């Protein structure tokens, strides 16, 4: 090993533009394009308007919650159940916002200045912001975060429209292919984020129990899937911790 790399110069201005550039070259620009092509196609398939689909991306900015909302708006599902499922699917936003705050906040930061970057918060934006923050001056970090967030969100909104249009124009096979984009990209990106036994078990059990619950036509099938599979995974996680306490 040679000497540690010299610290890069601190970026003291132009945080917003740097954030935009970072987002455009990020792997997430690609993943988000594909995910939202799938979401746009899904909205078309469920008979919603293109404007509604784009507004959903801009306001919700959380792929899983959006898919749950669209599939839950069909006949037969109560809106309360859908609201609870949407909310539970977005719980991951809480810990990432909590972890982001000490990175971007200064003594002088006002509440309203935090509401914008917090709306942009998604796992993708969070990863890029946390990764870049150490070489960005503290007073530029909110601007950087806004640049990353606005760029990725805009890509999401544009590709929602692209997916919606593709679904309307394409022959059936390709339309089905666009629909398939949502489950396959969520499946692999959730698996990629699953590092602990806890996450892997929750993913595997949810995949198995979800269709079972839907097939047996229980009420609140998604909530039961989450509570049963999530609690079993959590129990296994606790047992694992007891047998092999963290060193």
């Amino acid at each position, binding site marked *: 090993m040679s000497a540690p790399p010299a610290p890069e110069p601190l970026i003291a201005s132009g945080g917003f533009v740097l954030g935009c550039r970072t987002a455009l070259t990020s792997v997430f620009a690609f993943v988000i394009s594909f995910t939202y092509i799938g979401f746009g196609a899904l909205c078309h398939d469920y008979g919603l308007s293109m404007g509604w689909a784009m507004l959903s991306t801009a306001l919700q900015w959380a792929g899983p919650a959006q898919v749950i*909302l669209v599939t839950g708006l069909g006949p037969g599902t109560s809106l309360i159940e859908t609201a609870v499922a949407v909310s539970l699917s977005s719980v991951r*936003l809480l*810990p990432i*916002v*909590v972890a982001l705050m000490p990175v971007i906040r200064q003594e002088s930061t006002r509440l309203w200045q935090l509401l914008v970057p917090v709306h942009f918060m998604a796992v993708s934006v969070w990863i890029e912001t946390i990764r870049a923050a150490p070489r960005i001056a503290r007073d530029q970090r909110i601007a950087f975060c806004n640049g990353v967030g606005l760029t990725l969100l805009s890509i999401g909104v544009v590709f929602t429209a692209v997916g919606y249009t593709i679904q309307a124009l394409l022959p059936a096979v390709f339309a089905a292919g666009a629909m398939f984009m949502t489950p396959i990209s*969520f499946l*692999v990106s959730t698996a990629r984020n699953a590092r602990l036994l806890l996450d892997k078990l929750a993913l595997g059990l949810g995949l198995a129990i979800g269709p079972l619950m*839907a097939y047996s036509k229980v009420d609140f099938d998604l909530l039961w899937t989450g509570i049963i599979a999530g609690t079993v*995974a959590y129990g296994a996680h606790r047992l694992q911790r007891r047998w092999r306490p963290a060193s």
Partner: protein
Amino acid sequence: MTLAELGPYLALILVGFLPNEVWRVMGIAVVRGLDENSQIIVWVRAVATAILAGVMAQLIMTTSGALAAIPLFVRVGAAAIGFAAFMAARKSVFVGVLVGELVFLAGAWMYGP
């Protein structure tokens, strides 16, 4: 209450936007109080992951829309092969999505409508 009674845009705000945004705003509020590793958050994260997995499985096995016209074994097979490719490519999301999608299109073309 159903969607028809509420209207899609109002439903988007009440059922889609607010229950989602509450976590982002709450994150600012609880930043000093709540530990990311507290047991309730760990459990809630597992429940959230399982719900997401359930949604993906139900989407793949759906009985309505354009996907339903493609045989079930093509959909499940493409997801499984895409996942295997993702693992083989050292957890590359790009490879997983690309392979899964190509297998799906090939299967849909051969066995679809």
